[in-house]
């Protein structure tokens, strides 16, 4: 329809962010799960990424909390609820079909909690998230709206990649993707990036050496990316 309210633009952005948070958290936890098969205390480092202390007695408790506990704000269940919350008020923008994959994902996660084999039971969840993104690509005709969702998705991925120690090569690739998205943001909208923060990230991510020592600065800059120019730091 070509008219986007402030409320909906915000919802579109956070739909992208939370859905991506579900996906990348799941991916990272799966890798971690794989590593814990050999090394029993592999999750401490992951907690460190988020500045959390270890209050989990076992690997099992850790994974149960980070997968299924919707009161843990870093869990897959929590992010999926938030993604769904944003999606439900965007039905007419993203389509019922797209939204149905978030409902299916919720159902899969709930079923997985009861399952004997966590990783096997989570396999359909990844498929459903891919289907969700396929639907977004296919069903959202308005490029401006689609770009807001993708901005959210890419910011989130970049944030998690930087935060959870993904390789420089992957970070750089995602940043390149973000630059492309930002170019398509129309003027005077809330998703015009703050050139000061953007410049700083560009500078840091520009060289491997700089990135290795200053990634935490880039992470803070990313948080402020959409602050209006001239706002207090």
């Amino acid at each position, binding site marked *: *329809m*070509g*008219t*986007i*309210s*402030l*409320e*909906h*633009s915000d919802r579109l952005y956070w739909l992208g962010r939370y859905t991506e948070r579900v996906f990348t958290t799941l991916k990272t936890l799966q890798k971690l799960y794989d590593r814990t098969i050999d090394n029993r205390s592999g999750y401490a480092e992951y907690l460190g990424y988020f500045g959390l202390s270890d209050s989990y007695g076992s690997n099992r408790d850790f994974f149960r909390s980070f997968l299924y506990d919707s009161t843990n704000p870093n869990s897959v269940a929590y992010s999926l609820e938030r993604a769904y919350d944003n999606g*439900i*008020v965007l*039905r*007419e923008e993203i*389509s*019922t079909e797209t*939204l*149905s994959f978030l*409902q*299916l994902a919720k*159902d899969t996660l709930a079923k997985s909690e009861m399952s004997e084999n966590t990783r096997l039971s989570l396999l359909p969840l990844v498929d459903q998230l891919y289907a969700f993104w396929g639907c977004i690509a296919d069903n959202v005709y308005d490029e401006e709206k689609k770009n807001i969702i993708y901005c959210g998705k890419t910011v989130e991925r970049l944030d998690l990649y930087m935060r959870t120690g993904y390789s420089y090569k992957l970070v750089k690739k995602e940043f390149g993707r973000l630059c492309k998205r930002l170019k398509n943001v*129309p*003027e*005077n*909208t*809330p998703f015009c990036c703050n050139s000061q923060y953007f410049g700083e990230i560009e500078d840091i991510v520009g060289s491997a050496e700089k990135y290795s020592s200053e990634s935490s600065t880039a992470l803070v800059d990313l948080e402020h990316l959409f602050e209006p120019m001239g706002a207090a730091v």
Partner: protein
Amino acid sequence: MTQQNNEQCTKAVGNADEINELLRRYGVKFGIYKNGVFNEQFFPFDPIPRVIPAEDFKSIEKGLVQRVNALNEFLFDIYHEKKIVRDGIIPEDFIYISKGYLAQCEGITPKNKVYSHISGIDLVQAKDGEWYILEDNLRIPSGASYPLIARELTRIAAPQAFQENDIVDNRNYAKLLKETMENANCGGIRAILTPGRYNAAYFEHSYLAEHTGSVLVQNDELFVEDNILYHRTYSGGKTRIGVLYRRIADEYLDPLNFLPESLIGIPNLMEVYRSGNVGIINAPGNGVADDKGIYYFVPKMIKYYLDEEPILHNAPTYLPFYEDDMKYVLDNLEKLVIKDVAEAGGYGVVFGNDLTKEKLEEFRRTIIICRFSTTAKR
């Protein structure tokens, strides 16, 4: 429906579990508040169909069109010349005592003179097979999305039921709604106004917005400037709205014209509407036509405005306002359903056969007093 027929249909529709699974998947929900907490529940699907033979359907359809046409004529008349009152068909009191009558709507003529774009007429089939009108809903009837989506899913889950039976398709509702909105459009985009996601019918609002290609809006995204209704965009711009399918009640629609405490309305919307710069679906003020007291007079309206005999009949109703009716009511109170004409939505409904002797006497006295006070007033 015969027992055999019933079994056939149940079998034909097939697996209710699968359909319920699909309803879940597509998020067909309704919201309810329980102990102050908002919860969404999935809409349950009942596989036993209510079969209406084509012959019956044809006459029901004709009857409904006739009834709604008369009701539209009535609304135009009441908010303009009031000929039906002047000619003594409906006593004046029934119009102006009705809470649904809004003096603020006097003189307003909506585009194409259509007041009730979407009408929810409740029907009941009696033991003898005859269909009767139970009540008219001309304000914001809801529920159209559920049969739509249920049909879509039933066709997926039980295609043979549709192969073997010649079933009329109902899935053009969104297309009809879109056309209806376009007919009322005064120049601009189509919008559906919802009170928000915590409304019981939010699923329906968003589903209809999706399927009519309308913008789903809340009041804080809208404003009136230069006597035009606008949607506020995220870039600080504005988009004109030409037709508003509102899913909030008249009283809350415009705090400067109706309830000042309304937080879900749009200030000065009525000025825009009166000036013909926006269409509102359904028209504000329709409540005067679906009032329980007015129901009694709808068959008379059909004769008065259309000069036709009513095709569909009201359930037999007695209005103690008239002496003959009062006598019948007092003599047969225990056999009747008693409705307070000032109430709506199931409130103020009492079944005479549920009442004790004392209660029946009490009702008899109330009915007599009410009758004499209205008569005295005239």
